[in-house]
C-alpha cells in the first residue's frame, strides 16, 4: 500500500522538481502510515532520494526509454503501481508529467488532480487543495477512486530534507519500443534556466518598445541565473519566441521571484504568474495595474532602471560571493 512517486531525470541527473515531489510523497506516506517508493528511469544518482525520505527506488535502466515517451512511461509506472500495490501516485507539473498523467489516469481508472499546492487535507476521504480558475481560486477536491494521482505544483510544497535508509532495486518492464508516437527531434536551450523550473523569472512586455531592446533583459536574467519570459503581445508580435509567453493562455509561472518590466498587469497576465512568491514590477506608469498585484516595485523608465539594476546586482554578487 505504498505511495509511488515518479522522480524525473534528464541525462542521468534528477530534474529540480524530483526532490520536491519526493518530499511531497514522503509527507503523504507519513500521513497514510506507509512508505514512499520512487520510480526513476535512466537516472544514475538514485541514492540522493534518501535525503528526502524515500526508502526504496525502483531503478529502471532501459535505452528504449530514451528520450521520454508518454505512453511507454505510463506503462512503466502502471506496472510499478501494480507490483507495489500502491494506491497513490505523485507526479510533478512538468510538461512531461502533464502529458503522461492523463494516460495513466485512464489506464488505472484513477482520479487525477493537477496543480496541487499543499499536502493532502485528509487521506480518508482523500482530499487535496489545488489552484483553479488560473490561480484566481482554489478548489478542495476529493478523489473518489481507489487509485489516486496527484500533480504537485512547482515550488508550492518545497523540498524537505529527511535522511532515510534507501534501497535501490532494479525494475524492468517489457517495453515495446515500436512507438506509435515517436520523438524525431528535440530542440531545447541548454545551460539556461527554463520558465518551468527557474527560481527567478525576468519578464518583459510591450513597454520595451521592440525586440532590439531585449539585450538588457537577457543580461539581467544572466546576472540572476533567471529564465526570460514575456507578455502575450510581445510573442504575438514576434519580438520573442512563443515559448516565452506567460499568463493564463501561455506558460504558468510559479517561481520564487518574478520581475515584470514594462508589463501593464492585465488580468490574463496576472492569472498566469500570480503563483510566484515574490513579484517585482518596474513600470513608468504609477497607475499600471501590476502595482496592485506586486510585492515590490519601482516607478521608473525601464531603460534607466534595468541597466542600473544590472550594475547594482553585479556589485552585490561580487560582495556576497
Amino acid at each position, binding site marked *: 500500500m505504498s505511495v509511488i512517486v515518479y522522480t524525473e531525470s534528464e541525462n542521468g541527473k534528477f530534474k529540480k522538481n524530483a526532490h520536491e515531489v519526493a518530499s511531497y510523497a514522503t509527507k503523504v506516506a507519513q500521513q497514510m502510515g506507509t512508505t514512499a517508493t520512487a520510480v526513476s528511469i535512466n537516472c544514475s544518482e538514485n541514492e540522493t532520494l534518501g535525503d528526502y525520505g524515500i526508502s526504496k527506488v525502483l531503478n529502471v535502466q532501459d535505452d528504449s526509454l530514451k528520450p521520454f515517451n508518454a505512453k511507454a512511461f505510463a506503462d512503466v509506472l502502471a506496472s510499478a503501481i501494480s507490483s507495489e500495490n500502491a494506491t497513490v501516485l505523485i507526479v510533478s507539473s512538468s510538461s512531461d508529467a502533464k502529458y503522461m498523467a492523463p494516460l495513466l489516469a485512464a489506464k488505472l481508472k484513477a482520479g487525477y488532480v493537477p496543480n496541487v499546492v499543499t499536502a493532502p487535507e485528509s487521506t480518508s476521504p482523500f482530499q487535496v487543495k489545488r489552484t483553479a480558475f488560473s490561480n484566481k481560486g482554489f478548489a478542495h477536491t476529493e478523489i473518489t477512486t481507489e487509485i489516486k494521482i496527484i500533480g504537485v505544483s512547482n515550488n508550492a510544497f518545497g523540498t524537505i530534507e529527511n535522511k532515510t535508509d534507501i534501497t535501490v532495486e532494479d525494475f524492468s518492464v517489457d517495453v515495446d519500443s515500436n512507438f506509435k508516437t515517436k520523438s*524525431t527531434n528535440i530542440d531545447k536551450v541548454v545551460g539556461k534556466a527554463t520558465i518551468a523550473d527557474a527560481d527567478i523569472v525576468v519578464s518583459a512586455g510591450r513597454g520595451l518598445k521592440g525586440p532590439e531592446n531585449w539585450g538588457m533583459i537577457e543580461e539581467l536574467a544572466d546576472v540572476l541565473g533567471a529564465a526570460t519570459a514575456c507578455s502575450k503581445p510581445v510573442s504575438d508580435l514576434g519580438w520573442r519566441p512563443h515559448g516565452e509567453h506567460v499568463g493564463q493562455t501561455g506558460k504558468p509561472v510559479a517561481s520564487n521571484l518574478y520581475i515584470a518590466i514594462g508589463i501593464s498587469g492585465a*488580468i490574463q497576465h496576472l492569472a498566469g504568474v500570480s503563483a510566484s512568491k515574490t513579484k517585482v514590477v518596474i513600470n513608468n506608469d504609477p497607475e499600471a495595474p501590476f502595482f496592485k498585484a506586486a*510585492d515590490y*516595485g519601482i516607478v521608473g523608465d525601464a531603460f534607466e532602471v534595468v541597466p542600473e539594476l544590472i550594475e*547594482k546586482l553585479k556589485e552585490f554578487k561580487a560582495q556576497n560571493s
Partner: protein
Amino acid sequence: MKVLVCISNVPDTTSKINFTDGDTKFDTNGVQFVINPNDEFGLTRAMWLKEKQGATVHVATVGEANVEPTMRKALAIGADEAIRINAVPTDGFFVAQQLAEVVKKGGYDLVIGGRESIDYNGGMVPGILASLLDMNFVNTCIKLEIDGETITAVREIDGGKETLSTSLPLVVGGQKGLVEESDLRIPNMRGIMMARKKALNVVEPIEGIHATDDKKFDKPAPKGDIKLADNVDELVTLLHNEAKVI
C-alpha cells in the same frame, strides 16, 4: 477525414471569480462564457483542414442547454455540425468518457481538444480520451501537419520543443501555435446566419465514473500593499534582506 473539436465552455478571461452556495459552486452571475481559448486555436486549425484537405469538422461539448450559444459560435466560425452531450461536466474523467462515446460512434480520425480549460485547469480530458480509445496522443501541441498517412506534430516541452511523428487516429491537446492569434476567426454575419441552419444534436450521457469531486472553493488571501522603492539600491536591499529572494 473526420475531425472532432472538443469545446469547453468557460468564463471569459476577464471574469471576476466568485463562489456561491456556501463556496461550493462557481458563481456564474454576470459571467460571460466563451469558447475555451486553447480550443479556439484548435477550431481554426480544423477549419484549415476543412478548407485545404476537405475534412468534415464537428464540435462536441459536454454541458447543459446553457452552453448552446458557445456551440452556435463554433458553428458560425465554420464547424459543420455540433453535438451536445446533455450532462453537467463535473470532472475530467467523466467528460472524457462521454466524448469517447461520441468519437467511437462518429468514427472520427482526428480529435482536437485544448491543453487545458481555463476554468478548472484539469489538463486531462484529451489524454484520458486518447487512452480510453487507444488513439495516439500529442499534448501541448503547437504544430500539426497531416500529409496522408504521416503526421508531424510539434509539442511544447519545458525549455523548448519536440517534434513527433505519429499517425491517425490521433488526439491532440492544442494551444496557441496550432494557429497564430492573428489567424483566429471571428464569426461574420453570413457565418451566424448559416449556423442557425446547422444541426446541433443533443445526446444523452452514458453512465460514467466520477473520479473527483470539488467539495469547496476559496480565493487567495487579499494581497498586502506593495512596497515601492525610491531607487535601485533600496530595491536590491529589500529583495535581499526582506524578501530573501536574491
